[in-house]
């Protein structure tokens, strides 16, 4: 057991810190970047130009050829400067790296990682949320195209983050019989800039438009846009989700530390009016964030040995619990003021935290994963 950095990792951190102190945008209030796609894109491109985006990706696809440790160091330092990391397309790119053909990787990965083409992930549907295997968006083989013909896609996706800006969608579609569940699903790359696709933003509980509904009406998709084997898409999706689940990939821990720092200031400004209840609520939230940080180190250290497995659901559940506890404490510490005038985004962040137990597989789905795959409990 040794949690120290190597001299090389330390040097990377110091170099990065120096670059960030010269290049990090001045003031970024919470929510600025999630609301403002353009700002995030510009930031991503600056990072990429400086060699600080796509750190753990192979150099032949315009990544930096480094590892998860450097990625974690980046997330920490970005958090220290209050700036976001690169665009969070990690799991889509991961799916492409693992399952796409060399030709597809050469075509799509470099612009994805450079932030010049944007992607969304078409998984959930109105009637296929937690029960993803029941998805119905249909891709039938175009009868006019012969045995190697392309597909014609019709159906609807929902909760599709960033679809309004996306150039491509990594989309799960039904290619088998309607009731074939996980056995008849394929993965397609769908060009979003073509006729037959309609994107309607969904307004979320906090008033922004982070995700969308996407409608496909007889959309043409060439055979060359099939990822991997026909009807094997479910397996690819499940592996992709394990990369979406951990805080290692999302780099939220540093965001939580930044929120804690701001909350500490709020508490100090309250001076003699601080009651021990508020102080302990904040301390309890800080305990959670600190434990999540160490948990992330543990997962990172495992990630160096082997790919992520079902235990990623532990990290996801812990992260959701810690985030919700932190933002619930925040509303308590700041008090009614954030309900009257929320210019510091405390209430907005609190509302957003309620999604942590829903996105990327609900809390209940994650618990089923653990019961089945980590604890070996019988299924009903």
């Amino acid at each position: 057991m040794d949690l120290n950095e190597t001299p090389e990792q330390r040097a990377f951190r110091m170099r990065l810190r120096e670059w960030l102190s010269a290049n990090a945008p001045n003031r970024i209030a919470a929510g600025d970047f999630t609301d403002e796609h353009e700002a995030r894109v510009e930031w991503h491109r600056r990072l990429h130009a400086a060699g600080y985006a796509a750190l753990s990706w192979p150099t032949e696809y315009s990544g930096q050829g480094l590892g998860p440790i450097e990625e974690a160091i980046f997330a920490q330092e970005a958090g220290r400067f209050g700036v976001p990391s690169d665009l969070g397309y990690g799991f889509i790119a991961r799916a492409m790296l693992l399952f796409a053909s060399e030709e597809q990787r050469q075509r799509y990965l470099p612009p994805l990682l450079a932030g010049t083409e944007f992607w969304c992930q078409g998984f959930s549907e109105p009637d296929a949320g937690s029960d993803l295997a029941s998805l119905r968006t249909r891709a039938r083989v175009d009868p006019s195209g012969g045995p190697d013909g392309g597909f014609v896609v019709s159906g609807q996706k929902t909760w599709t983050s960033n679809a309004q800006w996306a150039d491509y969608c990594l989309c799960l579609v039904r290619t088998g019989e309607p009731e074939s569940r996980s056995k008849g699903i394929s993965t397609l790359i769908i060009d979003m800039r073509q006729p037959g696709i309609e994107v309607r933003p969904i307004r979320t509980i906090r008033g922004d438009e982070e995700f969308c509904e996407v409608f496909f009406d007889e959309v043409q998709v060439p055979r060359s846009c099939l990822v991997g084997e026909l009807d094997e898409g479910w397996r690819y999706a499940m592996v992709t989700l394990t990369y979406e689940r951990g805080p290692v990939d999302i780099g939220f821990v540093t965001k939580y530390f930044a929120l804690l720092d701001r909350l500490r200031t709020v508490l100090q400004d309250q001076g003699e009016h601080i009651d021990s209840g508020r102080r302990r609520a904040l301390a309890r939230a800080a305990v959670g964030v600190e434990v999540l940080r160490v948990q992330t180190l543990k997962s990172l250290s495992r990630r160096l040995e082997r790919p992520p497995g079902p235990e990623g659901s532990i990290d996801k559940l812990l992260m959701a619990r810690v985030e919700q506890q932190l933002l619930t404490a925040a509303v308590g510490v700041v008090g009614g003021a954030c309900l009257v005038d929320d210019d510091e985004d405390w209430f907005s962040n609190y509302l957003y935290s309620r999604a942590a137990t829903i996105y990327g597989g609900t809390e209940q789905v994650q618990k089923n994963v653990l019961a089945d795959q980590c604890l070996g409990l019988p299924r009903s």
Partner: protein
Amino acid sequence: MEFELTTEQQELSHLIRGILDDVCPAPVRDRTAAAASQIAEPLAETGLAGILVPTTLGGSGATLIEAAVLGEALGAKGAPGAVIASTLICGAALDLVRDTDRAKVADTINVADPCALLVGHDLSWPPGGGTEIAWGWLEGALVLAPEGEELVIASTNGISAGETADLALPIGRRVGPPARTRPAIAESEGGRRFLAAANVIMSSVLLGHMQAALDASVEYAKQRHQYGAPIGSFQAIRHLCADMLVDVDASRSAAYGAAWTVATSDDVDEVERSAAVAKAWCSEAGLRVCETALQVHGGIGFTWESVMNDHLRSTHVACASFMPLEQALDVVAGARAWI
């Protein structure tokens, strides 16, 4: 960076568990010297008793990480508390012991003879006068008590055997006059370091109890049938077990992460904070896990015979011992309030 235990640390864990499987296959419910000596002998023979005693004083000179491995195993098996007191708590306190007493204390620990630590009436450390508790006390034990910024071998006059909620932990009780001033040892760097180490050790003991409670619950949920199916197939039970797994896995991160920090950091503020984080987390998680485990066991968990009885009781005592939750939270909040 490597979080996993080294091969040597894993072998240590196997060695300890092998010994404990032989000597106490089920949680001990015996606070007598006889029960403690049964486990003390193999621990002394293998050099594990003096795990925290420096080699110059005849011990193994291991770090707090190895001590946490031992603490986890002792908690999981429900080992006698007197051994935890002597080997781990007093072992961690050795640096604080006055020079002239240190060799004698080390000799006592190395053979796993009883060595107790004086704490307050509510099990917090340091003791503050009035009723005080000798944590891990058996007839004839050495008792370490603060004097200035040091610990000394204290007189055992007036100490009589008492009981806590923990069925495996013997204690002594002494009633004295309340102290006028708060002990200087609490504010000294050595005292703060010892308290951090004690919190890490109790975190590892709590982790052991949690893991054992989870394992027993999963096993029970697979075997117990109702409505014609194992109860572990019902989502209500499966989700309780998953909740426990999250708590246990995060507690493992918390306990060993803090063990590493306390063992390696020169910064006493960081050491103190990291141990308080682990103790606060493992205390709350430990109670959640043991209470949930009891629930999964249904009526069986509520019986005197159930091992949930041992784990839940010991967990409460471990939570309160040396630093209660509220105090740990205050340390994290940046105010080291004397309570």
